[in-house]
């Protein structure tokens, strides 16, 4: 099952349409090989989910894609161009939303940070902030400080700030991992709707296998020590996805089985 997919992926050079391409990427940190030779392409508009056991290098791979780390071998490319530093077209939704928001700025102020940085004139900011907050369901909370908001609201706020960058790519690191099941399902659907409306490419890291299948066009499973691609699944489930119907779909159950078996074998 994994074999033909892997063969397909390793047939570089990257075609022109690949938005993000990992080309034989390796990373050594502190004398330890954390990532060893990942080759992977993410097409524009695709939702790629990354799963793997804890500590297998998911976060590290995402940081490479963000340009926060430079690979020690191979190259990470954005639209064919080698990434030397983070880019504004690539937004990162950090796992620890509590640390990624500015506690001294209100919800509006946090969104404004991104708008100020892209140089939007202050006269236009208020309207754009209101629009973005409404988009993530925080319309009535513009004046609240992050500490006055629930975890789900804080993560929504971080997503709003990322959208303010007007990104082509959203990199999300277990964004809903710390939230309760109900909030998580709600946010999954909101995120899918948002992404559908913006057409952004998404790389979504999660340890929740069902979440990966539910959201993704494709799921990549990483193997640990060092981190490398061990499995690739194409998710052929109809969109828009539905929390009940999709999760009961026979194909969903088959994919779920395949992923569980993979994770179990990788541990």
């Amino acid at each position, binding site marked *: 099952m994994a074999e033909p997919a892997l063969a397909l992926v390793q047939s570089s050079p990257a075609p022109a349409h690949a938005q993000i391409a990992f080309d034989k990427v390796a990373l050594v940190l502190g004398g330890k090989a954390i990532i060893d030779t990942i080759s992977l392409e993410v097409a524009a508009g695709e939702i790629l989910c990354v799963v793997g056991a804890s500590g297998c290098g998911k976060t590290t791979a995402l940081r490479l894609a963000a340009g926060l780390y430079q690979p020690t071998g191979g190259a990470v490319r954005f639209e064919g161009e080698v990434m030397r530093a*983070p880019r*504004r077209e*690539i*937004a*990162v939704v950090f796992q620890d939303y509590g640390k*990624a928001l500015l506690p*001294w700025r209100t919800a509006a102020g946090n969104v404004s*940070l991104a708008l100020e*940085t892209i140089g939007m004139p202050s006269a236009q900011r208020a309207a754009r902030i209101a629009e973005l907050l409404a988009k993530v369901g925080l319309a009535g909370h513009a004046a609240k*400080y992050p500490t006055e908001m629930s975890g789900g609201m804080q993560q929504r706020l971080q997503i709003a700030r990322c959208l303010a960058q007007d990104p082509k790519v959203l990199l999300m690191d277990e964004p809903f991992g710390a939230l309760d099941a109900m909030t998580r399902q709600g946010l999954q659907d909101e995120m899918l709707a948002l992404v559908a409306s913006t057409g952004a490419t998404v790389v979504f890291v999660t340890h929740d296998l069902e979440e990966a299948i539910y959201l993704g066009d494709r799921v990549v499973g990483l193997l640990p020590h060092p981190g490398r691609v061990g499995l690739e699944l194409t998710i052929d489930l109809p969109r828009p996805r539905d929390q009940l119907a999709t999760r009961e779909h026979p194909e969903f159950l088959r994919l779920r089985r395949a992923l569980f078996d993979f994770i179990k074998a990788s541990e």
Partner: protein
Amino acid sequence: MRWSVIAWRCASFVVAAGVIALWQLAADRRLISPVFLPGPDRAWASLLRGFTSGDLLTKLTGTLTHMAYGWLLASVAGIALGAMIGSSKAMRIYVAPTLELLRPLPVSAIIPVAIAAFGLNQSMALFVIAFGSLWPMLLGTIHGFAAVEPRLYEVARVLHMSRLAVIFKIALPSAAPDILAGMRLSLTVALILAVVCEMLAGLDGLGQWVLLSARAFRSADLFAGVMLLGIIGYITALAMGAAESRLLRWQAARR
């Protein structure tokens, strides 16, 4: 919550009134010679007389000026230096031990050095006041800058924020609670050193007024000056507290 605050205010007011009443009683009964202890009535009269004649007002302005200049100079220097040291790990490692060595040094020890370097004048006072009030702000700023959440720097990198924007939009606001706490401590230090320098260098100010009144056994004037110093300390601390709670509104939201 609000009621307990009001209750505490009332209680402290009652205590203050009690102290003044006891003071008046002690003076009336001449428990201590009036040469050394005037009653609050005489101290108050002297205070009013000082202001109407304009003498005391000049001294008050003098002390406030010394205090403000020294404190502001120390604030600018402390925050700039602290930001430089605090935002660089190498600087922290190399410079911090030296600072720890200098910090416990009593400022009084630096006064003779300052007098030798500048003479008995305004520059000496400015230097001593600024030097003494530098430490709380410097150390507060270093700590504040060192404690900025690293994730926020990554957010800044992803957003391509300029260096200046990172300092003003992330590091400074994040360090603000530590910086402001340092500034509040320094305010007291600046007042004390202003008085000391005025006494030593004979500069126009309450320190000089208090010293000369004591030498001339004008105990009412002496007490008027001391009361005024207490009031300065109280009001500046109050103003600083108000500024702090305004600037750190977001911290109140956390509670």
